[in-house]
């Protein structure tokens, strides 16, 4: 993640692994043992770890749906554990999957599992492959048997913004967010930029609830936004169910996130930014079964099939659909940078100059700490 996680950590961890008896034995064999991969070719056990309940209509469900598809592949066994805390619990869960269930490919799916938990366990089990969702894997810094994958879901949020921009009458949009972290800020900005591409007078009001799953606060935030005149809402919390249902009851439009929430809001659901994790997982599993090393820094958006959008709801106008489809086509062609200048922050500072643009893979975007012009709210 940054400088001081460098050499000293790795050597120290190596020493730790060396002193630990029993389970640390594989640590002595330095990589490349043909035995596990030969075994893996026959039957691969894949471990999935979720931070919340698997059926939350949101983040965890998006992963679990992909896991359920993997389960049906021949020669693949899936073991899953839900509601695993981001403490030493997750370290022990990974180890337990490895030593009791013979998992050789492990997917800890919550952001907080990356550092230090997954990195620490990966040091101890160099023959096991770990792929983490969302982490900033750096080759040479992090263990060679780890990696990370993530999707540019801000593309979906940009398209959400276009749909919202066409649907809004009050020109006020709302965003219910958990915490002001880069992944969330990037979504808020993309949503707002999408909407302002339709009408530059549109604003997005943000409310941070403070945590990933706070149903009453999320409902209050939604009501607060509606009362402030907002007529389209989207969100970035673990389970969008409460936000979508509350919006529907208040008679306003919603754009979904994480998974498809259309059944929850048959009238007001416009479209949604959904993960399509099966693309990533299938690739990892197929590579592993073929004896290849699965990718270590895997990123992708609409074009790569990592992200998809929900089917348009009944309230989406034909011209809105046309505008979205045009942008989507550019995204599929890979030439639609969302963060293209000139972009000013909502504090008035020019953050991206005219003519300058950041492609989706640009690491600068993964450290986003600003909100674009048109967003009402602050990052701290």
């Amino acid at each position, binding site marked *: 993640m940054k400088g001081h996680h460098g050499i000293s950590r790795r050597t120290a961890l190596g020493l730790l692994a060396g002193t630990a008896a029993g389970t640390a034995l594989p640590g002595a064999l330095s990589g490349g043992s043909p035995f596990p991969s030969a075994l893996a070719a026959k039957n691969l056990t894949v471990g999935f770890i979720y931070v919340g309940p698997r059926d*939350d209509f949101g983040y965890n469900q998006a992963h679990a749906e992909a896991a359920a598809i993997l389960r049906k592949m021949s020669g693949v066994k899936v073991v899953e554990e839900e509601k695993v805390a981001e403490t030493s619990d997750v370290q022990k869960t990974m180890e337990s999957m490895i030593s009791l269930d013979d998992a050789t490919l492990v997917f800890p799916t919550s952001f907080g599992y990356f550092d230090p938990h997954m990195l620490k366990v990966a040091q101890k089990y160099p023959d096991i492959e770990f792929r983490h969702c969302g982490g900033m894997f750096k080759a040479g810094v992090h263990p060679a048997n780890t990696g990370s994958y993530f999707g540019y879901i801000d593309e979906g949020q940009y398209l959400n913004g276009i749909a919202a921009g066409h649907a809004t009458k009050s020109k006020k949009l709302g965003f219910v967010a958990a915490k002001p972290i880069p992944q969330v800020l990037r979504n808020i900005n993309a949503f707002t930029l999408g909407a302002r591409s339709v009408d530059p007078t549109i604003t997005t009001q943000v409310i*941070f*609830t403070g945590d990933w799953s706070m149903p009453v606060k999320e409902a209050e935030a939604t*009501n*607060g936004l509606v*009362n*402030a*005149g907002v007529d389209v809402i989207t969100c970035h919390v673990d389970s969008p169910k409460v936000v979508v249902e509350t919006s529907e009851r208040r008679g306003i439009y919603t754009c979904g996130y994480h998974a498809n929430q259309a059944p929850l809001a048959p009238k007001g659901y416009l479209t949604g930014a959904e993960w399509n994790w099966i693309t990533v997982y299938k690739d990892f599993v197929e590579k592993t079964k073929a004896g290849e090393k699965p990718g270590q820094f895997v990123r992708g958006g609409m074009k790569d099939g990592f992200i998809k959008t929900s089917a348009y709801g009944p309230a989406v106008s034909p011209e809105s659909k046309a505008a979205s489809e045009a942008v989507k086509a550019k995204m599929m062609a890979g030439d639609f940078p969302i963060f293209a200048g000139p972009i000013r922050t909502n504090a008035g500072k020019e953050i991206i100059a005219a003519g300058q643009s950041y492609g989706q893979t640009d690491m600068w975007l993964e450290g986003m700490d600003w909100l674009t012009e048109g967003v009402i*709210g602050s990052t701290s």
Partner: protein
Amino acid sequence: MEDLGWWGVVLAVLAGAIRVSTPFLFVSLGELLTEKSGRINLGLEGTLVMGAMSGYAISYLTGSPWLGVLVAGVAGALFGMLHAAICSLPRVNDIAVGIALMLLGTGLAFFLGKAFIQPQAPILPAIDFGWWSDVPQVRAALQINVLFVIGLLLAPFLLWVLTNTRWGLIVRTVGDSADAARAMGYSVDLVRLAATMAGGFLAGIGGSFLSLYYPGSWNEGLSSGQGLMAVALVIFARWHPIRCLGAALLFGGAGALGPALQSVGVSQGYYLFNAAPYVLTLVIMIATCSPTRTLAGAPGELSITK
């Protein structure tokens, strides 16, 4: 919609008080009734979560949210019965039993509730009390659920029962002095059983409000400690039902403060705003308690004030 500015915050807090306070109200009235009989039930959090789950499940399975509310109450009464039965054994600590039942109730609700996270159950209707207003925010704020109205009436009713009826007198006598109650020929255990079951019934209904009205769905993060706070609310209200109503409204309003302030642009320190109700309770307890006398209104038999 017109922009109300800072008036919007006031309105949002008031509206939030109405929306968010109902579970606090039911659970604190339930706790109050139990405590009046001289026993403390710290397990209402488990009862509340169990009520939320069972109410939602029944509403989904039968299509009737009101049946859900009833079943939530019954589930709560059963937990109350368990609490009272265990506590009536000699040498058993009621605080510990409460914590145990909190764990058991939450665990059972999560276990049995897995199947009901996904489905959408029919929820309770709201009554439109805001038909007279042209301001949409006011109309929205006055979309009031019947349970809130029932809670509003329940507080004075409970006060009347406790002060003016024979039943109320018996409960208070048992709560103030078990020996005196025994001398008068009342079964202390039976009275406490009834009071704890009634308290559990109300807490279960409080839980069903969460899943069947606001926020109106079942999931494992639904309760943010409303049941746990019941004990604090009752002390806050000094064992007086009308003050319970005030305390519940205050807690509900305080819960709405964080999002409401952000909606007018006060975006910093929302964690601190979210903690406001707890700080407030603590401050009020510090201001009103005294080391030399027990709190006015406290039942004499109550373990936590002895």
